[in-house]
């Protein structure tokens, strides 16, 4: 099928169900030049000169700069802000002939786990419309799940790619910290943020990941490592030892689904299994949020209403303000080393524990999240909202790679398994994930 024809189908579906019909609200802006760009790609395909992403229609989270399109971070603060340049990941996508269909909704400044905090309205979960899609890359996951595009980019600081991927029944990857350039990403927490792909399956997400990975001189934390070999990803590895995270979650149905899937994979491929205990894992949320509050407070000082946009304290919603005002408070009180310093110590402990664990096993599996999503607008406590991230955060603290893969449904709501590997072991993680995925088919 021609890129233009596929794109037209997506645009019809978007028109039908994004702002009308089901009112998913996955997109904040569509690319006005998208048809023209798709025609150029089709010409290149015809001439046999097209790149790796030719024919792929891609949505981009609203905190990533795409030249000429709005980079609003789903906030009134940057409501009319147009990106004057392309983020490195966007340059790479364009170079490989991916077509950017538009800018996806998200939690305001990526501050949220539900997809409800956007200043332009919550995104609906396309699979179960009255439930949250998960956040913060809510629009990216919903756009893929709703059939509005082939793939999407999101960003993950504590859960923000994997959680919405799990709730919407798509694949989402948080790559190793520093393996993908963050240049052009409007940051939430600079020591934890990572851009990554969401797609309908492991194969498509591997393709997008292989394009965006690599060292970039504009992001001094970025590193070069092994390239992903897409042919190798298809091969089922032998002699794998799966580490099953020893962590009790309240929802027994979720744990049962995970256990059944692990049992199935072991039976089919003859892999081994080992229980893995990570010390202090129950303190992941308490370790993560002080870091995010402090780094977010620091990173948002540029939104002072003078250079661009509005002053963030005057125009942001409650969750962003909670993080900024809380961050301001604990930054002032940090001289005692009670908050950020404590978190850095705990982060180091988590990192050492996970590094040790990955010496014993090839991957660690767990549920993506300990509970099912709540309904849009439902009242829950801040602590309960933050608890969605309990099992995803440890991998941001250590900085390794992790992936969310759909493995089934409970009461019609998708459930994802988290498959995590050591730093720069993306290739191995994708192979293992694809082996799991083959069981579904």
């Amino acid at each position: 099928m021609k890129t233009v024809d596929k794109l037209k189908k997506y645009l019809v579906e978007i028109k039908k169900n994004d702002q009308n019909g089901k009112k998913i609200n996955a997109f904040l802006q569509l690319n006005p030049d998208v048809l023209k760009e798709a025609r150029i790609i089709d010409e290149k395909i015809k001439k046999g000169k097209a790149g790796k992403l030719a024919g792929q229609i891609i949505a981009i989270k609203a905190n990533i700069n795409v030249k000429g399109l709005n980079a609003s971070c789903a906030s009134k603060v940057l409501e009319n802000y147009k990106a004057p340049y392309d983020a490195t990941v966007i340059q790479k996508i364009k170079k490989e002939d991916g077509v950017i269909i538009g800018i996806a909704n998200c939690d305001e400044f990526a501050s949220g786990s539900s997809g409800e905090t956007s200043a332009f309205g919550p995104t609906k979960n396309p699979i179960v419309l009255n439930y949250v899609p998960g956040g913060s890359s809510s629009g990216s996951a919903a756009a893929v799940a709703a059939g509005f595009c082939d793939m999407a980019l999101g960003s993950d600081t504590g859960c923000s790619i994997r959680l919405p991927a799990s709730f919407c029944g798509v694949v989402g990857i948080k790559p190793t910290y520093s393996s993908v350039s963050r240049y052009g990403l409007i940051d939430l927490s600079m020591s934890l943020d990572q851009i990554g792909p969401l797609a309908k399956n492991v194969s498509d997400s591997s393709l997008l990941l292989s394009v965006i990975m690599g060292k970039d001189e504009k992001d001094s934390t970025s590193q070069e490592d092994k390239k992903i070999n897409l042919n190798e990803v298809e091969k089922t590895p032998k002699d794998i030892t799966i580490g099953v995270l020893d962590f009790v979650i309240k929802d027994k149905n979720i744990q049962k689904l995970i256990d059944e899937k692990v049992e199935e994979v072991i039976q089919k491929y003859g892999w081994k299994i080992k229980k893995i205990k990570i010390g202090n894992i129950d303190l992941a949320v308490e370790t993560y949020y002080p870091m995010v509050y402090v780094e977010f407070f620091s990173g948002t000082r540029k939104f002072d209403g003078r250079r661009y946009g509005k002053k963030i304290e005057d125009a942001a919603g409650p969750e962003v303000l909670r993080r900024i005002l809380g961050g301001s408070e604990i930054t002032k009180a940090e001289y005692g080393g009670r908050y950020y310093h404590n978190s850095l110590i705990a982060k180091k402990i988590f990192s050492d524990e996970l590094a040790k664990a990955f010496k014993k096993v090839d991957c660690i599996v767990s549920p993506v999240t300990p509970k099912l999503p709540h309904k849009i607008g439902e009242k829950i406590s801040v602590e309960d909202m933050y608890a969605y991230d309990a099992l995803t955060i440890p991998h941001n603290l250590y900085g390794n790679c992790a992936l969310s893969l759909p493995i089934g449904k409970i009461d019609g709501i998708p459930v994802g398994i988290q498959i995590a590997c050591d730093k720069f072991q993306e290739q191995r993680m994708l192979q293992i994930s694809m082996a799991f995925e083959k069981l579904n088919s």
Partner: protein
Amino acid sequence: MDFLWKKVSEKEKEEIQKKAKTMMDSFSKRLSKIDKNIKAPLIERGIGEREESIEESNDDFSRKIMFENAQNKNKDFVIAEKGGWREE
């Protein structure tokens, strides 16, 4: 509480700030039980150098967008005035 976006009043901001500090205090208290005898550096630092190159975004299109984004501007410069964005 729900997590839907809404405009926040000054009074609500004070309340949010107070509650956020209380929550951070409780997090800090729970973290205090961990072993603090960590000797290795807490922050990994790389070389921290990069090769500077000519910015390809210094083109006319980027310049046009930069002026469009500015709240206040003159013919060829941006006026960075505090509170300039506020509606009269």
